[in-house]
Every structure is written in structure tokens, then in C-alpha cells.
């Protein structure tokens, strides 16, 4: 097996602000292989976007304090100079942002924004070639009449088309890694499904590695091979998608699962919100960052949840599935206490 294309190790990102140091990401490690999709889930402020922006070196280098290691295709990104980072951005690693209306420049034509992305990494190409390439990519992502729409401004596109154009721009240089930051959040559900299908097709075609960042577990379930759950800037659960979704081992993940509405399930299943607010990144809680909102703190002896940060280690089901929890038998607790509340129909069937 070849080395993973992206290796993130002990990544820590801090921002000094007027109120103090924000610990946006702490000791985060993950890998993504070519052709695979990693889903990063977490609520706002969990550090999911911040960590992936670090992969492209998009943070303001004068203020952000980044330590640890990010290796893209073997090349270390942390501390890399601006000119070398530039060669990586959009070429090796491309990013798709969440709100395409805001992420596309309102004053430039869609086609010229795509062509610009191509030209910057193909300095020898003519403007004509870049335009042809832009039309080709718009066609590839399913925009009708691409040779005409190429001269439209972003506001003349529909929401779904804008996101398609954004994807076309991301893929125009055949990147080896595509980071999609909440690619479907701003779209309605039918368009959302189309965009996800498109991303999957394109991934197969280009065999690129994909990171999909979302708070929507439905998106994750459809797209991801592996899942990383983030909370308070740290990874709290990590493993193969199926494992994490069916046998989650961290109370925060249970909370995420419980708060997903399910139109197919019967009404007996309850929607359970996670109580409390996301942790402050300025002054994180002691011990496990989730303990103030966790219903299972009492099950751990010696008040360990409050005093001691649990390590991210292999859980009871094997080496591939890691969790950051003090519970001795998290799977048991999930099956006896959580599952009956959120999906009673599953238990009746079995």
C-alpha cells in the first residue's frame, strides 16, 4: 500500500485575539489516501474548517500559530514559503467553499474565474485554451450550454449551478486532493443530492483524495469511507464510516446521531438535541472537553472526565476505530441507553 496522500500529525492551530489565545485546533492527526473520502464532522467552532484551511496554508501567517506536521504528497506544508504554497494551492490541493455565491467574485464572469484558476498553474497556456478548458469543465459538471453560460456572472447562475461551477473551478487542474467545506449546506435537498452524486462521480474519474467537511451526518453516510469527529478543536472519534455510524463510541457522536431528523423512521424515535453550548476555545473545559454536556460522566469512576483528558485510542471493536472517551464499554452504553431512544424500530426488528 502506498503512503497516504495527506498525512496530518499533531496539528495545532492557535490565533491570538484581543480576548486571549484561541485554541482552534489541538493535536489533530489524520490521513487520507488517494481515491478515498474522509468525512470530518463537528459543530461550528469544532475546528474542522480551520484544520483543512491549514492544509492549503490559507491562514494569515502573521497571526496564526501553526505547529505539527501536514504532509501533502510527502511535502511538508507547515512553515512552507508562500511561493511554494502557491504552487500547491489549486494545483495539488483544491478547495470548494460552502457558500458559492459568496465564494465566487461577484464582478467577474464565471468563465474568467475558471480560466484564471487554470492559467495561474499553466502559465504557457493561451487565454483561448484557458477559456476552452473552462467550458469543458463547466460541461463536465453538468452545466447546460456551457459555451454560453461561461460568459455569465455568478449572480446569473442558480445556487446549484454556482456550486457546480465552484467544483469545476476546483477540479480544473486535476488536483490530487479536493477539500469540500460544507459543499451542500447552502443548497436545497434535491440539489444537494445532485451535487453529492457529482462529487462522487468526479472522484472516481479523477481518483483524487477527498475531504468532505460537514455537520450533516446524512452527507457523511453517503460519501465518506472514513469519519473523523471533531469536538472543541480535537479529534474525538475516528474510524471507518460504517463502524462509526453503527457502533459509535463517544457520547458526542451519539449526540450528533440523536439530533438527526429521520423522515423514514416512525414518530416514536425522538429528536434529542445535545444540551448546552459548544466549548469555549479561549478557555477550554478541563479534562474531556465534552464533559459539561455529557450524560454519562457519572459512569466513570474518580471524576476522571473532569480532571483528565482521555487519549484518542483504539476502542473495544479493534485498532481501526479510535475514540477519546473514559467509558469502559462505550458500545454497551450506546446499545442499551442511546439506541432505544433514537431508533426504537431498529431494536424491534432485531
Amino acid at each position, binding site marked *: 500500500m502506498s503512503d497516504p496522500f495527506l498525512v496530518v500529525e499533531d496539528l495545532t492551530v492557535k490565533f491570538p485575539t484581543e480576548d486571549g489565545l484561541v485554541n482552534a485546533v489541538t493535536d489533530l492527526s489524520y490521513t487520507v489516501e488517494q481515491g478515498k473520502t474522509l468525512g470530518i464532522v463537528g459543530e461550528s467552532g469544532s475546528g474542522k474548517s480551520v484544520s483543512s484551511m491549514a492544509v*492549503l496554508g*490559507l491562514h494569515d501567517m502573521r497571526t496564526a500559530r501553526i505547529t505539527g506536521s501536514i504532509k501533502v504528497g510527502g511535502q511538508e506544508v507547515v512553515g512552507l514559503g*508562500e511561493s511554494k504554497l*502557491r*504552487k*500547491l*494551492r*489549486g*494545483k495539488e490541493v*483544491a*478547495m470548494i*467553499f460552502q*457558500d458559492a455565491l*459568496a*465564494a*465566487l*467574485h*461577484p*464582478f467577474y464572469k464565471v468563465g474568467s474565474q475558471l480560466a*484564471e*484558476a487554470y492559467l*495561474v*498553474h499553466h502559465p504557457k497556456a493561451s487565454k483561448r485554451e484557458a477559456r476552452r478548458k473552462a467550458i469543458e469543465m463547466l460541461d463536465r459538471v453538468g452545466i447546460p450550454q456551457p459555451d454560453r453560460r461561461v460568459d455569465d*456572472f455568478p*449572480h446569473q447562475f442558480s445556487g446549484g449551478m454556482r456550486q457546480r461551477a465552484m467544483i469545476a*473551478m476546483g477540479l480544473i487542474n486535476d488536483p490530487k486532493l479536493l477539500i469540500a467545506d460544507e459543499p451542500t449546506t447552502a443548497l436545497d435537498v434535491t440539489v444537494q443530492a445532485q451535487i453529492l452524486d457529482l462529487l462522487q462521480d468526479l472522484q472516481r474519474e479523477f481518483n483524487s483524495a477527498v475531504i468532505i467537511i460537514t455537520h450533516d451526518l446524512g452527507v457523511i453516510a453517503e460519501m465518506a469511507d472514513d469519519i473523523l469527529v471533531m469536538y472543541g478543536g480535537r479529534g474525538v472519534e475516528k474510524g471507518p464510516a460504517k463502524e462509526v455510524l453503527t457502533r459509535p463510541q463517544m457520547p458526542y457522536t451519539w449526540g450528533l446521531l440523536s439530533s438527526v431528523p429521520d423522515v423514514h423512521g416512525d414518530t416514536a424515535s425522538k429528536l434529542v438535541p445535545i444540551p448546552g453550548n459548544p466549548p469555549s476555545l479561549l478557555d477550554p473545559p478541563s479534562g474531556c472537553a465534552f464533559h459539561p454536556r455529557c450524560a454519562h460522566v457519572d459512569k466513570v469512576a474518580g471524576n476522571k472526565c473532569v480532571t483528565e483528558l482521555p487519549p484518542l485510542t483504539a476502542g473495544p471493536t479493534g485498532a481501526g476505530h479510535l475514540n477519546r472517551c473514559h467509558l469502559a464499554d462505550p458500545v454497551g452504553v450506546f446499545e442499551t441507553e442511546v439506541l432505544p431512544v433514537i431508533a426504537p424500530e431498529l431494536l424491534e426488528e432485531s
Partner: protein
Amino acid sequence: MFAYIVKRLLAGIVVMLLVSLSIFLLFWYGPSEPARAICDSKTSQRCTPAKLEVFTEELGYNNAWYTEFPEYVGGIFTGRDITIASQTTRCDAPCLGLSYKNGKPVWDEMKGRLPATFSVAIGGAFLYLLLGVPLGVAAARRRGTVADKSLVSSFLVLSSVPYYLFALLTFLYFSVLFEAPFIGNPGYVPFTESPSGWVGGLALAWICLGIFGCTQYTRYSRGAMVEALSEDYVRTAKAKGLPQREVVYKHALRAALVPVVTIFGIDFGTLLAGTIFTEKIFDIDGIGLWALLAVGQKDLPIVQATALFAAVALILSNLLVDLLYSVLDPRVRLS
């Protein structure tokens, strides 16, 4: 687009009518005797009530304003004959009346003064944009650093000095105390007469307007740029791998210019309408100085004309800005 321009121009004409009407009415119902100025000058300061009454009758102040005003407006388009002190003068279109002071057509004198005012306004605006926008961009890029903070605070101090004081001090130091060569003797020399004299005579006025205006434009463009730099599409530009200068000067500045252009439109109109302090202090015979003199001499036609000119300048520069707006921002549809 064409329909929009026509609509705006029609609206502009209505504004101009209202502006000149309100000035007109001021002389009708205001606490002054508008014929007094002309009576004084024609009788060598020996204006008797009887003579005043003759002039008042002759100038039409005994008629109702609504018969005189249409005549005034009509004169602008067709010209008219005006009789003062039993002497009839032909006033060609655009007739803005005859000066009560010297009896000459107002438009003739205005024509002579326009180049001076335009020279002052264009040079000053050019200088403050040239200084202000790049400084604002540079400050936005270094936001929060010592350089940014000291620039912002020193400009805040500078812009809180009253403009006339600033201009007077400039005049005092450069003209009176240092007797600076080339620029130390301000005044208006037509460009066609002597280009170097034109530059030298206006330099101090330009520097004053430039420095004072640039403090504001630095602030505007810094604010607009800080906002633009935090936009998602600027991050997208960076994520594409574009070099920093393209990210800043192509993607961010393009967006930041829109609000700056808007403010500039209003400012430039005001600048044209009269830089009274500047023209007075630096001895430039422009529209502003003229208006000031006319008010003192109760020379109604000149006051009328300068007010009308101010309205035209503001309306046209605002229209120009709106048109420019639709060029800068494709989302703006003029209708």
C-alpha cells in the same frame, strides 16, 4: 440604460428648477432690497427712495415672482433683452441675467472663471485619490500593525483640524514665511498661457486639498479594503494559487473601489460647486470666490447662477457615479 439616463436627467432638471426657484424666492420675500445694489452703483452711492423705486420697477421686482421666474428660465434657453437704467442689453443664451454690479452678462464672466475652478477641483481630487487609495490599501493589508495604527491615528488628528486653518497655515508657511520658489506665489494662470505658471500657481491649493482629502480617502479605502479582504471570494482567489498582488489588487481592490467611487462622486460635485476657502486663500478667481463676493454685494443674478452651477455639478457627478457603478458592479442594473 439610455432610458435610465434620460430619466435621471429629467429628474435633475426638476432639481435645478427647484434650486433656482428657491434662490429666486429668497430675493422676492427675503429681508433685502434687491434693487439696492444696482441703485447704489448707478447713482454713486446716492440712492434715494424714489430712484430705488425706479430700479425696482425696472428689474421687475414689483411683478409677481411667477411672471418673472418663467422669463428667467426662458432666457437660459433663448436669451433675452434686459433693461437696466434705461439701457437695454442683449443677453444671449444661456442667459443667466446681467450682473447688477457691472451690467455685463453673468454667463460671460462665469465662462472665464470655470477653468480656474475645474483646475483646482480636478488637480485636488487627482492628488487625494492618488495618495488616499494606495495608503488605505497599504494600511488595510497591514491591519493592526504599528504602521497601520500610527497612520490611522495621525490622519484622524489631521482631519480634525478645520480645513480653513489648514489652508491658511499652508499659505502662511509656504508663501509668507518660506517664500517657497515656484509655488510660493499662488494664483490662477491659464494653462494655455503658461503651463508651468498654471502648475506653480495652483500647486499649493492642490496640495492642501490633496492632503486634506487624502486623510478621508485613506480612511474610506482602508475600511472598504479591510472588508473586501475578509470576503469569501478573496479567500477563493488565494486558494486558487494566485500571487498575493493579484489577490489584493485584482480581486479585493476591485470590490473595495465601489464604495470609494460613490463617495468620490458626491465629493467631486461639492468640489466643483465651490472651494470657497481654497479659492479665497490662494487667490484663485473661480466660481467659489465669485459666489462669495456676489452674496456680499447682493448681486442676485450671480448668486442665482452659482447656485444653479452647484446644482448642475452635483447632479451630473452623481449621475456619472451611478453609471460608473453599473460598469464596476455587473449586478447593478440601471432602470
